[in-house]
């Protein structure tokens, strides 16, 4: 299996889906000639031509709204928001149309499309290039929100997203784009949307994260094993909405303790929903409060300060330790 980074892995997934199915088209700002500002769409224009790899005018609602039209007409658009920070321009089309056509027409009209967007901080970019707002999209019923964390699951999930019958917001942790490589099979690999993954089994404590936070979390979990001799069950959420409660609650039932690591601010985050589900199903198994390691409820800082605000391995370590010792 070749080793590749996440950019290459998503690119591979797009290549393969485009070659299989000529209804798949890619559109967005600078996705063609420029191959995407992060080069995720590299080579697609050359291979599939201008009709399938479309450099659009600079208008997010335009990109997404026309993608809805394409999807209604039988295409499978994979559109890109250049950064998630500019994706809020599509909220009305998402809440008002993409998520509703199916129910509005009781299944006669559907909107199978993917909205790719790099999200999250850590790349020293300007304002609006650092937010994690998966929670905002997760508030909308009828929308799937998927966040890969490694090259391999990114490839398997982008393929699943392209084939999914519903609108999928595919949030790519830009900090992880080139941070590391992983073996990714050349042949087709698909992961199911809506399922979390148990990355390590363990029975002392459940640790849950997703996206770019998986890296510092894995590091910390390893250290916890070494230093404290505790067995952590580590869960990668992968799909933020609709959430896989079962994997979470089964784990917490076993461990009785849980820490959630979230890049987004604390208030109204996905971590809150995880806690609510633990409350619903396995509260009585809890031996300690679930602990959230998150960003703070401040306006996302410019990059000069941002690292102070992210969950760090130190904060994660302390949260796990405190929860173990509770």
């Amino acid at each position: 299996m070749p080793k590749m980074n996440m950019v290459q892995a998503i690119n591979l997934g797009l290549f393969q889906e485009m070659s299989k199915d000529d209804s798949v088209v890619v559109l967005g700002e600078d996705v063609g000639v420029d191959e995407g500002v992060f080069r995720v769409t590299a080579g697609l224009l050359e291979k599939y031509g201008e009709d399938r790899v479309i450099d659009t005018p600079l208008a997010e609602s335009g990109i997404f709204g026309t993608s809805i039209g394409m999807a209604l007409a039988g295409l499978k658009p994979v559109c890109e928001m250049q950064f998630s920070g500019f994706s809020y321009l599509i909220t009305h089309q998402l809440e008002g149309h993409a998520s509703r056509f199916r129910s509005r027409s009781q299944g006669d009209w559907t909107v199978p499309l993917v909205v790719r967007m790099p999200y999250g901080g850590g790349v020293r970019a300007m304002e609006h290039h650092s937010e994690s707002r998966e929670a905002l999209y997760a508030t909308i019923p009828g929308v799937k929100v998927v966040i890969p964390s490694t090259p391999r699951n990114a490839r398997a999930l982008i393929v699943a997203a392209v084939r999914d019958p519903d609108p999928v917001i595919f949030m790519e942790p830009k900090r992880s784009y080139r941070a590391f490589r992983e073996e990714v099979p050349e042949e087709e690999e698909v992961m199911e949307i809506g399922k979390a993954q148990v990355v390590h089994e363990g029975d002392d404590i459940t640790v849950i994260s997703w996206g770019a936070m998986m890296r510092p979390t894995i590091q910390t979990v390893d250290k916890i094993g070494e230093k404290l001799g505790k067995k952590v069950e580590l869960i990668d959420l992968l799909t933020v909405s609709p959430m896989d409660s079962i994997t979470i609650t089964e784990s917490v039932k076993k461990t009785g303790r849980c820490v959630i690591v979230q890049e987004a601010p604390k208030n109204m985050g996905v971590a809150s929903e995880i806690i609510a589900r633990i409350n619903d199903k396995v509260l009585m198994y809890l031996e300690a409060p679930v602990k959230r390691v998150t960003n703070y409820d401040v306006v996302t800082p410019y990059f000069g300060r941002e690292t102070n605000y992210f969950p760090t391995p130190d904060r994660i370590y302390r949260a796990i330790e405190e929860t173990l010792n509770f």
Partner: protein
Amino acid sequence: MPKKEIGKFSVSYMQILDETGKVDTKLEPKINNKDLLAMYRWMVLSREADQRMINMQRQGRIGTMGPSTGQEAAHVIPAYLMNEKDWFVGAFREAGARLVRGETIAQALLFYNGFEEGNKKPKEYRTLPVSIIVGAQTLHAVGIGYAVKYRGEKDTAVVTFMGDGATSEGDFHEALNFAGVWQAPVVFICQNNQWAISLPRHKQTKAETIAQKAIAYGIPGIQVDGNDPLAMYVASKEALDRARSGGGPTFIEAVTYRLMMHTTADDPKKYRTEEEVDEWKQKDPLPRFQKYLEGKGIWDAKKEEALVNEIKSEVDAAVKEFEDLKELPAEACFDHVFGTKHVDIEEQRMEFLDDQKRGTDNA
């Protein structure tokens, strides 16, 4: 300011059949009698259904609805010119056009009574459900236009409607711009009915015409008397032909008037005068079209009476069909959140059914 002229643009207006029934014979299109009578019939049917629904809303038999009375020419005629391969992407004030496209009155009633079943329509009809978010649907039309072009579908156009108010929304702008860049086969028809709820046209934009907005996108645009069925026929046909033959998008401003309230929840007396409404009643497309047919010797009072009776029964039957419908399943919403199964939804469906069953046992 001293300067060199580098671009010249103009906006034209077209009227063929004027308010008094006079025809500009130089411009008069050749339409066979069958088509003329069919278009007239759709307009009369639309008017009758509209009026009936207002009454039914008043009686609490359906929910809020938005009448299209007075605007029939502006949307029935282009719909009549569309064929099966064409796509219809409407807003919410083209009830007559929807009938032409195969929607039943019973379905419309169901829709206005708050049931998604009113929107059920197989994809093959190429007619999207009502779109309430002002302006948003115009982008869908352009995306569909792109797909049509991409698939190399011949002789296929996309027709999308919007109001004068919609031209202020950003989505309208983006749609026209994308359509221009993509040369998408889209016909934009703006039913400028002079009002966006209480906002008069002149407060909606400083532009003297809405048609001139097309200039911003390098798209051909024209202003048409939207209450003139003949002018609507000529303008729509030209635009459809252009789209179907690869000539790209067209923008049509159809100047018309909303003779009734914005919706049944609205009281137009708060913002406009009876005189204004009366003035526009003189321009009503129905009597105008009727006069034209009479002038051509293919219509008379007896035929009119017969048609009116026939249409009344048709609407009666539709209302009966609607009211005879048995109760629709309450849990239907759980079936259409996603195209895949998810345990949350299924669990909640069970809870829902259980709660429905328990009813008021405890409380």
